């Protein structure tokens, strides 16, 4: 290990490993640090990944990292009277094995020239004259310091690195869902991701069944932080009240926090970039964050390498990452955030009515982001929703 790097990345999740790879490929000297003794484990994820992302990110997923191929999703109304299947390029994808997937991404970063160190925890961010310039870390009991021109905080939901650097990235209960999931065997599955909407089963969130094979699935619940009780209570109830899980056995427990509000107001500071879940870059509708983390990480890595080479790593120069990201992802994310805010206000009866009145095609359009025709149709049947839904028009 050296004492000085162009770029140090904290966190070898999808966001961090992608950033490290891109920065190394662009010629920077890179150190990728992660606390875990084995990258990828323990998993904190439903492991669903849309296949369209592979092209968009230039990502190759090894067959070993794929647990199951998914042909689409199926959504259930709260009263379970109606199910809607959506099978299109947007909903096609994989349920992956993140233990393999995350490690593969770190391997890619290592192959691209980044130094990778596991079982190493960053416990302090070093600043000089207000500018971030390095980290203090503990590598399997040995403490060390390393300097960098750019620090990329990709440390996931805990997001302590940004906060050590003075940026408040604390997750609020209001804007965060908390999820728990059991990987279970003896659960009959199709090649469809199942989503259950119901205020009682998952207030401000949803229940999911993500198949990992014909009879294995991630069965999980996410709930809003301000709701009664804790996620595990909802999951246990859902499983107990559902005959389908009678013979099911749990082979893994996974969980974590899922930011579902706006991304951080500022993604950069002098010498610092924040990417992925640490920056609350998560889809506010389904809570997926892997792809968004990789997308942001890729942009950040390239900009960090360029800025380091030019010796211009103040906030203004690093802002290039934020500006590219906001232009590319911002509008879509904000539209989805608006949809989320509306969905939050609907109760189970509203959902039932919407499911009953809409065709599969309508819901498909809704998911794609074309709200207007659908909203008009719903309002015709349920005019009392005018106030709530007008936010989408």
């Amino acid at each position, binding site marked *: 290990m050296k004492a000085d790097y162009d770029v140090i990345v904290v966190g070898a999740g999808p966001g961090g490993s992608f950033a490290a790879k891109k920065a190394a490929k662009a010629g920077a000297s890179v150190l990728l640090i992660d*606390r875990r003794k084995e990258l990828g484990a*323990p998993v904190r994820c439903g492991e669903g990944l849309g296949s369209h992302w592979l092209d968009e990110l230039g990502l190759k997923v090894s067959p070993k990292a794929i647990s199951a191929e998914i042909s689409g999703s199926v959504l259930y109304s709260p009263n379970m009277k109606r199910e809607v299947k959506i099978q299109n390029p947007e909903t096609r994808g994989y349920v992956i094995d993140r233990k393999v997937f995350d490690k593969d991404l770190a391997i890619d970063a290592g192959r691209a020239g980044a130094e990778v160190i596991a079982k190493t925890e960053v416990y302090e961010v070093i600043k000089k004259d207000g500018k971030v310039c390095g980290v203090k870390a503990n590598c399997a009991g040995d403490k060390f310091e390393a300097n960098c021109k750019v620090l990329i905080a990709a440390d996931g939901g805990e997001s302590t690195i940004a906060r050590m650097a003075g940026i408040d990235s604390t997750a609020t*209960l209001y804007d*965060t869902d908390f999820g728990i999931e059991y990987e279970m065997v003896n659960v009959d599955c199709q090649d469809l991701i199942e989503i259950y909407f119901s205020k009682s089963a998952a207030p401000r969130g949803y229940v999911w069944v993500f198949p990992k094979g014909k009879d294995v699935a991630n069965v999980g619940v996410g709930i809003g*932080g301000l709701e009664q009780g804790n*996620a595990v209570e909802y999951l246990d109830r859902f499983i107990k009240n559902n005959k389908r899980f009678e013979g099911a056995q749990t082979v893994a427990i*996974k969980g*974590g926090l899922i930011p579902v509000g706006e991304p951080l107001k500022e993604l950069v500071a002098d010498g610092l970039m924040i990417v992925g879940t640490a920056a609350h870059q998560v889809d506010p509708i389904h809570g997926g964050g892997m792809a968004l983390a990789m997308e942001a990480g890729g942009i950040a890595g390239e900009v960090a390498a360029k800025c380091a080479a030019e010796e211009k790593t103040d906030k203004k120069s690093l802002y290039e990452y934020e500006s590219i990201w906001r232009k590319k992802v911002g509008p879509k994310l904000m539209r989805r955030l608006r949809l989320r805010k509306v969905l939050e206000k609907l109760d189970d009866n509203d959902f039932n009515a919407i499911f009953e009145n809409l065709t599969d095609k309508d819901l498909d359009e809704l998911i794609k982001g074309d709200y207007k025709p659908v909203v008009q149709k719903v309002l015709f049947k349920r005019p009392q929703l005018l106030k709530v839904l007008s936010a989408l028009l």
Partner: protein
Amino acid sequence: MFIIEELKGVSLIKIDRHRCIYCGACVGVCPKLALILKETFVEYDEKKCINCGMCAKACPMKAIDFKK
């Protein structure tokens, strides 16, 4: 806030290490960085804690007890 400040150093939370799945959710919501994940357990600094109870509310595993 005054009462909470007065309680600094007195701990109202208790983390059950046997229940914890080290997911880090409590760390993410703690406004005082009083909780730090050490890969397989959460380290708790009661000197920093303001007993807001946020971590107990967040914990998806219900591994944190908060005595109100």
